[in-house]
């Protein structure tokens, strides 16, 4: 009972059980998407907005599938390259999805799809003032993190590595520095997660959650991989809370040495 309470997560004004945020793109089929998300236990799913022709029902159908999952929706501004584009997209998303949550992406480079620090701060300031709960996709730059917090963010989502690269956590030192500086913030590793062990490492660093998409959607068996990440974030959260042993350079026997049979004199 206290166990389950401990695991509750207050994020952006809502309360969820799972530390996983999952994307809705790139699955082999809509059915696989639904099953994978359900299997993952995620209670927050990211979605986007795209142009749609009159009469095209794709958006409506997708939306009904997402609604049937009965979990929280986190719209993104994926593909935006300027603060202005991102702000407009966020405002449209708020109307369509009826939520003030926004995963704020302002891309600064097509090669690594990293955020643009300058436009990101501008967009964040505008959106916070406009009443949004901003989930900024950011780099692992501590100074940028400070600016975002000054702009009003209660949540930060540093990248692990480039979107879709599956490289895991490229710079644990930087991620740890952000965690230590902002013990009260909700921190989520977003982008770059490739394997369950990457998600566990993020949580072991003390991060509060993990956001991923490709790692599940592009697995050979996405549904099973959803289950894997469900266990992974649990393992990481528990492992962090439990306080891991210290690494040591010397080996140290686990089985007691005293009482060892056959022992007659000191061995060298």
């Amino acid at each position: 009972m206290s166990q389950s309470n401990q695991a509750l997560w207050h994020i952006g004004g809502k309360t969820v059980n799972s530390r996983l945020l999952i994307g809705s793109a790139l699955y082999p089929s809509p059915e696989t998407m639904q099953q994978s998300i359900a299997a993952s236990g995620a209670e927050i799913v990211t979605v986007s907005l795209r142009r749609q022709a009159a009469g095209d029902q794709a958006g409506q159908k997708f939306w009904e599938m997402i609604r049937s999952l009965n979990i929280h929706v986190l719209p993104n501004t994926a593909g935006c390259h300027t603060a202005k584009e991102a702000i407009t997209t966020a405002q449209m998303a708020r109307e369509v999805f009826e939520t003030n949550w926004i995963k704020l992406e302002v891309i600064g480079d097509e090669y690594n799809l990293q955020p643009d620090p300058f436009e990101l701060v501008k967009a964040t300031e505008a959106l916070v003032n406009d009443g949004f709960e901003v989930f900024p996709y950011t780099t692992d730059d501590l100074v940028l993190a400070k600016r975002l917090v000054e702009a009003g963010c209660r949540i930060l989502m540093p990248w692990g590595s480039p979107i879709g690269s599956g490289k895991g956590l490229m710079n644990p030192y930087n991620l740890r520095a952000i965690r230590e500086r902002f013990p009260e913030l909700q921190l989520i590793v977003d982008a770059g997660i490739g394997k369950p062990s990457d998600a566990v490492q993020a949580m072991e660093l003390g991060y509060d959650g993990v956001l991923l998409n490709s790692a599940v959607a592009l697995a050979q068996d996405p549904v099973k991989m959803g289950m894997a990440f469900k266990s992974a974030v649990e393992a990481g959260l528990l492992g962090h809370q439990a306080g891991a042993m210290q690494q040591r350079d010397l080996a140290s026997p686990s089985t007691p040495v005293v009482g060892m049979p056959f022992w007659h004199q000191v061995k060298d």
Partner: protein
Amino acid sequence: MTQSETLIAVSINGEVRQFPASISIAQLLEALAYRQTRFAVALNETFVPRSQYDHQTVADGDRIDIVAPMQGG
């Protein structure tokens, strides 16, 4: 609409279409037959809330984006 009315060129999701001058967003959506309930509109990259559809008119050369829910990561 009468023959004498001026036409304006408006980009709808990147494709240029002709409309009568002074058309409102609401009329434009009607003309395009958007019947979905889940969409949002931007005019020249600025968001137009649903409540403004009747009041906001469109000018020659304007760019309109109409977006709907889609997969996202």
